């Protein structure tokens, strides 16, 4: 099986659950305690994509939450093969931030495989995303996952899907 290493940046507004998503994906753990990320946290996870004959080593760059990219953030994003944009389903403004960050990242480094995670679906009482809004996001991002880092719902699906998109993109680029 071919081993492929890819850098993936996880970006989004502050306190949307980026670090929790990574923690869930890498260590299958979750903590209710909110701890602000400063700079960037780097972690790794290897996943098998048997249908593509690839074992992919994802180097995950969990970038500190922001609603706009500056030089520091662009430096973190350099060399990324894909992006995980994260929004908070209980704070509708964070979905707009995700869209804005995606546009800026693509402007700066070109279009890359990306998925949007609308996170915190476990907070049903505070959930504030209509089906119509989700359809709109789907049209913008192509791949949208309603996730819960707390329960783990759809987190692995989203990251695995991104890994597949990255591999497919690499294969397409080679051809």
């Amino acid at each position, binding site marked *: 099986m071919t081993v492929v290493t890819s850098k993936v940046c996880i970006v989004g507004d*502050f306190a949307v659950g980026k670090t929790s998503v990574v923690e869930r994906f890498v260590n299958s753990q979750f903590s209710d305690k909110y701890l602000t990320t400063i700079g*960037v946290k780097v*972690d790794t996870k290897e996943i098998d994509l048997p249908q593509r004959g690839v074992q992919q080593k994802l*180097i995950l760059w969990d970038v500190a939450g922001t609603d706009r990219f500056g030089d520091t953030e662009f430096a973190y994003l350099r060399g990324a093969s894909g992006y995980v944009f994260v929004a908070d389903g209980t704070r509708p403004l964070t979905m707009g931030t995700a869209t804005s960050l995606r546009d800026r990242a693509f402007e700066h480094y070109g279009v890359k495989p990306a998925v949007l995670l609308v996170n915190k679906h476990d907070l049903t009482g505070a959930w504030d995303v209509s089906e119509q809004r989700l359809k709109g996001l789907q049209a913008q991002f192509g791949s949208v996952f309603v996730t819960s880092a707390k329960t783990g719902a759809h987190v692995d699906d989203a990251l695995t899907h991104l890994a597949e998109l990255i591999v497919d993109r690499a294969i397409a680029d080679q051809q």
Partner: protein
Amino acid sequence: MSLPTSVIEHLQSDFVAESRPVCFLVDNEYRLVDFWGDGEWSGLADVPVGADMLEHAPYLFGTLGRNPQKLNYVSTTSGAVVHLLTMPHENYHYVILLDAGQAHDFLQEKQQSWNELRLMHSSQQTLVARQRDLITELVEAKAELDHHRRDIERSSAGKSRFIAMMSHEFRTPLASIINYADLALEPDSGPTEMHKSIEAIARSGRHLTSLVEAILDEARLDAGQVQLRERNFDLFELLDDLAAMMAPLAAEKGLSFATLVDPDVPCHVRADDVCLRQILINLLGNAVKYTEEGSIRLYVTYNDGRLVATVSDTGPGISVKDQERVFRAFERGSDRVGTRTGAGLGLTITLQLAKLMRGEISLDSLPGQGCTVSLHAPVAVAQDSTPDDALSPPDEASYATQQKTVLLCDDDEDMLALLEHYLHRAGYAIVTVSSGTEAVAKAVTFQPDIVLMDINVPGMSGVDAAAALRDRNYAGPIVALTASKLSDAEKNSFTRCFRKPAPMQQLLFEIKQLTHSLDS
């Protein structure tokens, strides 16, 4: 100015003490070529030359370029936080790690507070927005409640008006019943007067019954939903009834009364006779009420499927400006105010009933020249001359042909006596009781062929008594005979249900059917 060596050495010493720099050289494949510094804090101690540095420092991936780079605050998998500097050198890259843990912790503390504040602000904004939404919802709910309240008030007022209207309509037949009863009780009343009086009382009683039924009918409470109930009936008989009802009232005031029927008027017609009767009673009743001398005349014609019934009087008449008002609820002609009792509803009801019959009312009057009011309504000639619910006294066909026992339960002595009389004459053995408890006890003892049960009786209600009888394995038919309206669930307790006053012929026929079918 150039710094003395001692100062430079001091600065270098301070920098090295705080940043604990680590420097290593890697090739383009990320393999370690050389290493300098204390690697313990950075998790890179004892990494052998030639090792794949991506295994130990995966954050290097993608950072090696043609130009120097600096990435601040990179948290590594070993838990260290570093400032990462990469510098290309020939075919290699220098990588410098500076310990940023202390500065990171300081920044994180500040940023954490700031972010928590923003989150709190965001929650506050959400709450304010939610509060605004709730206030809007409250305002809307209040508006809706006000709307419903107004509806209820309108409905309540309508209901009160309807009850007032119906109360008004009771007066005429009640007056007829009382007057004829007085007449019958007079010592010099002969059998003929007696018989005629009782007939008049029966007619007015039937009319009152139809009014009561109308009130009790919940669907009719809303005047807009009254249903037209057409049936075949004898129009001449209705006109005779009206004459018999009105003539004595007119005579009491010294007025002459005449009914004129055009030869083209059919005898057997199909229409809502209750409506028609009510309209004509109202028009004639008003004429009698407001006329002090002269005559009252009812003239009936029929042309091209339309009946025209005209009531003329020689009363004070109504001015043109008052003619519209008299059809509104609670209003009369201005010259009549204070001169007569009543709710002022007769013509309002009349107009509504005429519209229900798809007809209209016309009024022709001038002050001092009497009043002529006409009903114009479509009335069909009946194909069948048999009235739909002809009332006739019980005949022998409804009598028992076998010895059967009826248990009769009613707390009204008159009703009990009346039913006992008819049942006895029809050939039934009778056990009478006046309470539900007694009915259950006697039914268990006597095992009657049928139980005829009033509902509102002392001790145990008729519904409960029926249930108790079934519990005690009484298998015969139980028939409800009540003035109350039963729910569907209550009706299920009985074999048949009759509303008082029930036509005796029908009741006897049903009793015969139920008791005699037991043997078939």
